[in-house]
C-alpha cells in the first residue's frame, strides 16, 4: 500500500482530516492533514471570545501552507535534531503563540500530529519541547508505521515555493 493509500484510510477512519480553506474559491497547491484534536479545535465554537479570534487566525495561518503561499523559516522550521524530521508551523499572532508540529509524508504533503502553546514549551532544549517532539513522532508511527517521513534539510526537497533560508538550527 502506498502512503497515499494509507492517508486515505486514515481519512476514512477519521484519524486524519484534510485541511481545506474556509475562504470560498481559495486554490489548493499543497496538502495538509490534521489529527482529530486540531480538526475539532478548528471546527467547534469556543466559549472564550479571545480563543475564537485566536483559532480564526490559526486556521488562516495553516491555510497559508495549503494555498501554496511562499514559505519562509519564520513560518516553517525543522526542529532539532533534524534527523527526526519533525517540523513546526508557527502561528505567532495574536498571543498566545501556537506551534503545530508535524512531518512530511511527501513533498508538499504535511501531516500535522499535535500542537502546543509556545509559552508552555520553555527553552528549546526543555523537557516540554522533547515531550511534544516525542508526541509528534509517536503520532506519525501510529498513523504511518512502517513508513518513514520525508527527511531533508533542503527545504526545496519538501516544499514547492519556499523562500531560501535557514530552516533548521
Amino acid at each position, binding site marked *: *500500500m*502506498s502512503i*497515499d*493509500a494509507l*492517508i*486515505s*484510510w486514515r*481519512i*476514512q477512519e477519521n484519524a486524519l482530516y*484534510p485541511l*481545506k*480553506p*474556509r*475562504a*470560498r*474559491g*481559495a*486554490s*489548493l*497547491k499543497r*496538502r495538509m492533514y490534521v489529527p482529530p484534536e486540531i480538526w475539532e479545535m478548528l471546527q467547534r*465554537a469556543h466559549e472564550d*471570545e479571545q480563543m*475564537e*479570534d*485566536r*483559532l*480564526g*487566525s490559526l*486556521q*488562516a*495561518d495553516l*491555510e*497559508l501552507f495549503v494555498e501554496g*503561499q*511562499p514559505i*519562509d523559516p*519564520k513560518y516553517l522550521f525543522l526542529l532539532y535534531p533534524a534527523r527526526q524530521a519533525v517540523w513546526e508551523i508557527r502561528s*505567532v*499572532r495574536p498571543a498566545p503563540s501556537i506551534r503545530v508540529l508535524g512531518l512530511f509524508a511527501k513533498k*508538499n504533503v504535511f501531516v500535522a500530529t499535535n500542537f502546543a502553546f509556545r509559552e508552555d514549551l520553555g527553552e528549546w532544549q526543555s523537557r516540554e519541547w522533547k515531550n511534544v517532539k516525542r508526541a509528534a513522532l509517536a503520532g506519525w508511527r501510529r498513523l504511518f508505521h512502517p513508513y518513514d517521513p520525508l527527511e531533508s534539510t533542503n527545504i526545496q526537497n519538501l516544499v514547492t515555493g519556499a*523562500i*531560501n533560508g535557514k530552516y533548521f538550527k
Partner: protein
Amino acid sequence: MGNTSSENWPLKRRDIAYYRQRQKNRVFTALVAFFADEARQGNVTKKELAIRLGRDPAQITRWLSAPSNFELDTLSDILLAMGAEMDHEIVRFQDRSEVEDIYCTTGTDANSRAFASDNVVPLNAKEAVCVTSGSTIRYIHACG
C-alpha cells in the same frame, strides 16, 4: 464562510479573525517573496532598504519577520523603497468557484478511472484515493 447573506449577520467572531489574518498573511507573503526575489537578483539588501527608508536595519528585519500589524503606509514605504507598489483587486465570494470534494458515482470500477491519472491512487476495485489535480484537491472515496 463565503456566504454573506443577511442570515449570517452579524458576522461571526471567528470569521472576522480568520479573514483579518488571511489578509495579513497574503499581503505579508507577497511582500516577503518580492523582497526575496529582489535580493536574489542583487537589487536590494535589508541594509540598503534601511538606508533608503531612513530606518534602523533592525526595524527592517522586524517588518520582514512576521505578518504584524504594520500599517498600509509602512507597506507602501517598503515597496516604494524597492521601486514597486501593490496592485489590488477585490473579488466577490459568489464569483469564485467552491473547492469541492469530488465523489465518483459511476458504476465503472475505480482502477480504469484511477489509471487515467497519475495522481489517483487505486485502493481496490471499488475505491480510489485522494489526488491533487491542478489547483483543486479532490477526494475520491467510493467508486462503483
